[in-house]
């Protein structure tokens, strides 16, 4: 199974080499083989007696990240969708993408996506799942940006990436949380120990994080906004990623975890609500679109909402309907996307205002379109699969098991109405899509190309999908037992009693709902022109797109303002901020830990010479800050340095005194040398407030250091290691001057590198001076 998942990745590596021959053979032919092989591998598992299979491969066991593939009914459904639709789309793309395009890139992304998607639905290890999950987002990003010379493509790509990666990260949070609570990284293991998660005080957070991941990926309201913009991708991509597979990853995730999560009432509330709102919003928005793919994008959003809602309902019928609809949606929506691609390809536009009456030019395409779109509308005809799952949706909306009090109760009561409302618009846009494109008056003069029927190669894939629509419609039980039932079982956790799918149940409420939808839908569709102004003005400001654009825009603007606010290049400001932080936090810590101590029992006595020197140094130090004469400032600094060397003398440090004396002299000389070339000191023209601030900060820092110093001196807990130096300086080091012995022997390494520092300084100074000279000579 590892090979099956990795095959797309491996082939992807070789694609760049294959594209060298792309002038002779379209790269797509090679690529199509991959999903076909994967499909063949997995289709063997089909059958009534299917049992889940687990294959384990170790990857990073020390981090608990392993390739554990768990193939159960749900995974099998997805795997077959991914490889099946993948084969058809790859084949379709051969005719859709011209050889002059960057086919190599396209197919690399395509294969990476396919492999990742297989990984998502097969991984039992949550971190492996997350890895694949992010890779689907990334490959989607690259595919949307395939035609990146278009501004819209770049916009759509970034948008989809930000939203889906946002969701991915929040999913990661949930996964880590759950794995910590249950001490396992296996999904099945988590579900087995679900009590640990459900009873955790963090359960609400986990639920929200997990659902954020699912909702963003599956384009649930209000995160759906990336999907319409993702339509900038080449149409095969839209058919594959953005309707049949990737957007269902969120559905998959919710389904996968629903055996555990559905035990909580909030799961029902959040998921059903999100689903039903998405259904209504998406189908309403679809009616407003003028781009064929725009209609399909919003239609996908609304259909995903419907599936999500059914998962939220959680009843047997709902789960069965959800799983069934995943398959049905893939068939009719996949074919509709391909049809939109054909129209675009052959008529040169997807603008529905310019299209119309194409049936005469493209009879075959139109026939396919009518079947697929009627199935999408849920028209009660016995050969359309869309009807069955929609009927289950209605049925389940009427028989909810959840509590009937509080908000959940209110939601429960309103769901059937919302379901009908959303479905009416579903009907409307389905009709709009078909009739707007293929019927009515044609405007040939507005079309960039003269429309004609597509080449047969391009039609094969949609024909197969539409055939699927009809076959499932005619013989629903054919796929029920070996396929759908297993998938539903793995979601519901328990074996479902045999569920036969019938077309005719009698005049029961669900059927009445269907009829209502058809009647009202037809009225609305026929009177579309009347409603046009309404469609145009609602939702206006409500648009979530504006929220996104605003957020991204504001993010850049605010961050610019914030950063400019403090990162203004002013050294003074940097130092002030740094010092303020040091002072405040250090004092806080000193206060909290009671660090300040003062102990005068162990101090040297105060003597006059030292005091005099100290007073002189203080005066000099203050003088540097006050004087406006640069020579004076430098000389006064020298006074401080000489004062220090006097202190060194007083405190029995002859070597230090000498060194300090020499260094100070040289430094002063250097100062004078350099500042001969610098402008004079000016009167400080700062405002008083700055001066006070500077004063406060510098005094604060001085006080801090003094207090720490006094405390440190007052808490000498241990004897110094210096005893050792005194004892051994002569014995082991062979020198009388202890300081010198320490420098050259005990701590010789310090001295070695001290010299290195001086050496580097010399080289750097040399460079500073010489490099200029050379420049001036040039």
């Amino acid at each position: 199974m590892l090979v099956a998942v990795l095959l797309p990745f491996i082939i992807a590596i070789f694609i760049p080499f294959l594209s060298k021959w792309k002038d002779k053979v379209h790269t797509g032919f090679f690529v199509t083989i991959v999903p076909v092989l994967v499909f063949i591998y997995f289709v063997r598992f089909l059958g009534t007696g299917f049992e889940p299979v687990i294959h384990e491969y170790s990857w990073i066991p020390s981090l608990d990240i392993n390739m554990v593939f768990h193939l159960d009914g749900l995974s099998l459904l997805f795997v077959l969708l991914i490889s099946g639709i993948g084969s058809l789309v790859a084949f379709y793309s051969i005719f859709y993408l011209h050889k002059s395009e960057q086919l190599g890139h396209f197919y690399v992304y395509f294969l990476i996506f396919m492999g990742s998607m297989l990984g998502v639905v097969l991984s039992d290890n949550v971190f492996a799942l997350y890895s694949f999950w992010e890779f689907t987002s990334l490959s989607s990003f690259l595919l949307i940006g395939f035609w990146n010379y278009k501004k819209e493509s770049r916009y759509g790509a970034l948008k989809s990436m930000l939203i889906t990666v946002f969701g991915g990260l929040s999913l990661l949070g949930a996964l880590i949380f759950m794995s910590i609570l249950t001490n396992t990284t296996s999904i099945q293991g988590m579900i087995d120990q679900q009590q640990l998660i459900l009873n955790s005080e963090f359960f609400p957070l986990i639920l929200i994080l997990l659902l954020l991941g699912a909702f963003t990926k599956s384009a649930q309201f209000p995160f759906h906004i990336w999907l319409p913009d993702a339509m900038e991708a080449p149409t095969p991509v839209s058919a594959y990623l953005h309707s049949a597979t990737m957007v269902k990853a969120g559905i998959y995730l919710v389904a996968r975890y629903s055996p555990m999560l559905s035990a909580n009432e909030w799961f029902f509330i959040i998921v059903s609500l999100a689903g039903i709102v998405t259904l209504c919003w998406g189908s309403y928005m679809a009616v407003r679109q003028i781009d064929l793919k725009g209609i399909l994008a919003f239609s996908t959003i609304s259909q995903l909402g419907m599936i999500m809602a059914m998962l939220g309902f959680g009843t047997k019928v709902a789960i069965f309907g959800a799983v069934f609809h995943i398959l049905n949606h893939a068939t009719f929506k996949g074919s509709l996307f391909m049809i939109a691609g054909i129209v675009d390809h052959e008529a040169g536009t997807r603008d529905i205002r310019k299209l119309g009456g194409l049936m005469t030019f493209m009879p075959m395409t139109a026939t396919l379109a009518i079947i697929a779109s009627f199935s999408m509308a849920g028209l009660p005809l016995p050969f359309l699969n869309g009807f069955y799952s929609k009927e289950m949706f209605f049925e389940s909306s009427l028989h909810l098991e959840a509590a009937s009090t509080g908000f959940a109760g209110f939601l429960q009561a309103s769901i059937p109405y919302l379901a009908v409302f959303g479905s009416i618009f579903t009907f409307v846009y389905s009709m709009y899509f078909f009739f707007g494109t293929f019927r009515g008056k044609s405007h040939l003069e507005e079309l960039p190309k003269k429309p004609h029927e597509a080449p047969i190669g391009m039609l094969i894939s949609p024909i197969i999908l539409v055939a699927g629509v009809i076959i499932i419609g005619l013989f629903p039980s054919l796929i029920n037992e070996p396929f759908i039932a297993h998938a539903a079982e793995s979601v519901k956790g328990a074996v479902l009693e045999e569920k036969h799918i019938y077309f005719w149940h009698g005049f029961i409420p669900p059927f009445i709902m269907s009829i209502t939808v058809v009647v009202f839908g037809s009225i609305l569709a026929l009177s579309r022109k009347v409603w046009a102004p309404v469609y145009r003005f609602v939702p206006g400001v409500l648009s979530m797109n504006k929220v996104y654009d605003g957020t991204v825009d504001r993010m850049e603007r605010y961050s610019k303002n914030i950063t400019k606010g403090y990162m203004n290049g002013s050294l003074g400001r940097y130092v002030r901020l740094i010092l303020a932080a040091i002072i405040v936090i250090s004092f806080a810590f000193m206060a909290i830990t009671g660090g300040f101590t003062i102990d005068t029992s162990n101090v040297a006595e105060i003597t006059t010479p030292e005091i005099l020197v100290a007073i002189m140094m203080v005066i000099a130090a203050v003088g540097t800050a006050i004087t406006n004469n640069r020579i004076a400032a430098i000389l006064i600094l020298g006074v401080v340095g000489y004062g220090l060397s006097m202190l060194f003398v007083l405190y029995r440090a002859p070597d230090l005194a000498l060194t300090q004396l020499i260094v100070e002299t040289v430094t002063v000389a250097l100062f004078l040398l350099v500042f001969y070339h610098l402008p004079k000191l000016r009167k400080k023209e700062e405002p008083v407030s700055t001066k006070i601030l500077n004063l406060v900060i510098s005094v604060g820092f001085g006080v801090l250091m003094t207090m720490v110093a006094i405390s440190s001196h007052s808490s000498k807990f241990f004897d110094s290691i210096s005893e050792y130096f005194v004892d051994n300086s002569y014995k082991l080091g062979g020198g009388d001057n202890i300081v010198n012995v320490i420098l050259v022997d005990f701590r010789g390494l310090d001295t070695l590198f001290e010299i290195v520092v001086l050496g580097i300084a010399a080289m750097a100074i040399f460079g500073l001076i010489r490099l200029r000279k050379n420049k001036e000579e040039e």
Partner: protein
Amino acid sequence: MEIIMAVLAGILFTTGVYNLLQKQLLRIIIGTGLISHGAHLFILTMGELKTGAPPVLTEGIENYTDPLPQALILTSIVISFGVTSLLLVLAYRAAKVNGTDNMEQLRGNDYE
């Protein structure tokens, strides 16, 4: 005495920081000079200031001042000297090339 020395070193830090917060490069560098004096004084104070003999072994003397801080200061003085020299030349070059020694005018606004 240690306390007085700690206060003195603290004052050196204070004036040093105050100078560091000014605009003109000369003052800023003078500030760093004061701070390093303060730091060295702190190190010295952290040894015992009790006036034992200078840490040069002499017969008959048992009590020496703490030699380790002195060694550390010596290393530190030399390093500070290197850095200060570099800083001075750098300041001179930067002021020359940029035509000002006012740090507020050396902010650099060409980054966005």
